[in-house]
């Protein structure tokens, strides 16, 4: 391989993209292996379904965007908090309290006219999510409580609280879930249902996907272009130096956790206001969309624009997975395959190091050995 190609391959952006791609391919291959073990005869058909299922018709493609919407937002939530050095594992709790706030407004506040209704529902969801992010943020900033621990607790508090609140306020006791929201609270379709449909059967896609993408772009601008983003990244990369530079790290951590929470809450609202008939079920299960945000953020390598694509990709696998059931695969197998791929996506960073060192090796021996100035003997430091 000639030098210029190698240099190209070892550059930052390419390494990011190639490593995500590698993670995906290896994940898919391991997935195929599992299919071969569980049902050798149908393995290839099933694999085809998961690979191309999202493209089989316009309805499935619409479903991809529908499933992508909430996990893009939880992915942004995790990725954004990570920029400030915080691991927001509480997206699940923020997601569900946001969902409840939206559903509550959707069911009860019917006095709001038209577009204002769903708009207010989204805002209330973001506020609820922000509150759920604010608490771990305050605990971290002022009492140095590990965000992971407080977030996990907030997840359970959020889940059980929502169960109680749903049962007491907007309960549909026949179905053991929340009532349907008013039609004015449903996110508009903006004609997407006419494009993404198979015959008479429209997909559940709606304007939520646009909101998710716009959220991604806004987060990108905040992180890359603003003073706050500068402070946020400084806090994440070197808390001591940011303190030295007079950055108010308490404020930065709290605000970033609030924004992260608001994003997750918005994700919850967009899912339950999608008009797909989905309601909050009273179950003792943490919202999986929150946890799916973590691999989405990893696969997107923290880049808000990357997260948008990562979310769409994971949703694509989910839709493909449904199609696998046509070939007699039980849903559990489908979930294992998706989990494996997502699991490998977490290795994206590992692959990144590998790609960079591998292609840079001949050129200037970029090995993992630390340079002399950082030698463990440290004689010169």
């Amino acid at each position, binding site marked *: 391989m000639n030098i210029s190609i190698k240099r190209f391959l070892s550059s930052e952006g390419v390494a990011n993209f190639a490593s995500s791609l590698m993670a995906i391919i290896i994940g898919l291959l391991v997935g195929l292996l599992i299919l071969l073990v569980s049902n050798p005869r149908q393995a290839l058909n099933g694999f085809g379904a998961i690979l191309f299922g999202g493209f089989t018709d316009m309805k499935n493609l619409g479903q991809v965007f529908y499933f992508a919407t909430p996990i893009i937002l939880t992915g942004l939530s995790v990725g954004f908090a990570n920029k400030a050095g915080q691991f927001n594992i509480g997206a699940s709790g923020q997601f569900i309290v946001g969902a409840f706030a939206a559903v509550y407004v959707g069911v009860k506040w019917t006095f709001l006219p038209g577009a204002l209704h769903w708009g207010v529902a989204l805002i209330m969801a973001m506020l609820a999510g922000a509150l759920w992010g604010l608490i771990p943020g305050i605990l971290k900033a002022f009492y140095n409580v590990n965000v992971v621990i407080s977030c996990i607790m907030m997840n359970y508090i959020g889940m059980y609280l929502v169960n109680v609140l749903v049962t007491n306020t907007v309960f549909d006791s026949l179905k053991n879930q929340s009532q349907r929201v008013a039609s004015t609270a449903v996110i508009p379709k903006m004609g997407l249902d006419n494009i993404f449909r198979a015959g008479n059967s429209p997909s559940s896609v709606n304007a939520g996907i646009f909101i998710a993408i716009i959220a991604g772009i806004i987060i990108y601008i905040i992180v890359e272009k603003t003073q706050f983003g500068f402070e946020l990244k400084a806090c994440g990369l070197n808390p001591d130096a940011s303190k030295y530079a007079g950055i108010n790290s308490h404020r930065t951590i709290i605000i970033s956790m609030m924004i992260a929470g608001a994003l997750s809450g918005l994700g919850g609202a967009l899912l339950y206001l999608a008009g797909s008939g989905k309601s909050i079920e009273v179950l003792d299960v943490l919202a999986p969309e929150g946890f799916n945000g973590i691999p989405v953020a990893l696969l997107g390598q923290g880049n808000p624009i990357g997260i948008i694509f990562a979310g769409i990709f994971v949703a694509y696998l989910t839709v493909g997975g449904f199609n696998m059931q046509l070939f007699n695969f039980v849903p559990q197998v489908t979930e294992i395959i998706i989990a494996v791929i997502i699991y490998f996506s977490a290795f994206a960073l590992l692959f990144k190091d590998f790609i960079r060192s591998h292609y840079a090796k001949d050129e200037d021996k970029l090995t993992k050995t630390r340079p002399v100035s950082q*030698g463990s*003997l440290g004689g010169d*430091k």
Partner: protein
Amino acid sequence: MDYIIEMCNITKKFPGVIANDDVTLRLKKGEIHALLGENGAGKSTLMSILFGMYQPDQGVIKKNGEVVKINDPNDANRLGIGMVHQHFKLVQNFTVLENIILGVETTKHGMLKMDEARARVLELSERYGLRVDPDALIEDITVSMQQRVEILKMLYRSNEILIFDEPTAVLTPQEIEELMKIMKGLVSEGKSILFITHKLNEIKAVADRCTVLRKGKCIGTVDVASVSKEELSEMMVGRKVDLIVEKENKEPGKVIFEVENLTVKDRATGKNVVNNVSLNVRAGEIVCIAGVDGNGQSELVYALTGLITPDDGKIRLNGNDITKASIRQRNIGGIGHIPEDRQRYGLVLDYNLAYNLVLQSYFTPRFQKHGFLKYSEIYKYADELIDKFDIRSGQGARTITRSMSGGNQQKAIIAREIDRDPDLLIAVQPTRGLDVGAIEYIYKKLIAERNKGRGILLVSLELDEVMNVSDRILVIYEGEIVAELDPKTTTVQELGLYMAGSKRGIVA
């Protein structure tokens, strides 16, 4: 005379640098052999190879004329090679004795046989004049005592080749003298010593021969007795350097910075780490806080710059009380701070150079509008500073700071802090770990600022620096200012006595 250790034609490459380029080092039995070089000259790499921590790309190591392969420090130990690291490798809450036998414990049926070990340690400490209390905990004893424990560790393992990695950096002048005696004693008992340093005085004092490295290359091995310090320095740097600073006399102006009865308590022990410190800095003078590392200098500076809150006392800048002001208020109010640990506090290493250069000013109207950063303005400013302060880096303003050399990282911090035009510049060990060329540069910058009428509070551990650069010396010992001295009338010996706490003067 036979060589006990020979490192022949050693070459070691790292990404982008050749750390050792065909270096040959021969250690005679029973000599003190100094290894001299600037930072990044490859001294540490060479010793790491000898100690088995790196493998050379080319070249061989011979012991008593036979080629040996050293794969890890255990191999080195087996060959009788021991090392006192610059940062001691001791277990803080173990006793001296436990630390010495750690890893080579003698046992009977799985039980430690401490009595034998104790007898042997006492015998060794007697023979080499290394006084230690075998039952004291490491955390309770002084740095020089800890160093003796490290030396005893090597002797206990019957090492014959002893490597000392910059052993004097943490010691007072008196302790250094004692260490020199110990080293001579070790050699007279038949040990051979490799002594890594960049201090010429020490080489002249103890070493028999000296090998000089520059930029990874071996410049030569000389008999110390036959060369002058100036010649050694020229071999090391490759040009003549003059560290005697040219400084015109200047009458200091009005007081710009006052500290009154400042006290900082240690959060864990409740002890006063900074004890009732009062001082002032006037315009156009360099006030130096001299002291051995760990006597409260760091905490004092943290309190002055707002990184920690003092428990008692007042701080005034230009007459305004800033005791309770935030870090940002102090920064804007006229304090520049060159921090002690440049990588931990001074820089966001994963930011590029331009971002680091505006780390204290990104929020000013010049660099942001309505909360959005003006990148073109930031890069323009960065290029100006890079030009003005001669900061060298691979890709200019867009270089990731982590990849820059220590000297240039420090220049970046100095550029940022000086260019903000602070009334008071607090510089903490600004030359630590830098080579002679960079040190010269930093002295010139500090003196230029002084001549412009700024106040400078310099915290330093280097005696030469204290004596040459400052206009007034305050000696700090165990958190207290124990003396105020005039560098023109004080001797290094006297300064050393104050720093070691064995003498006290009138408190300013």
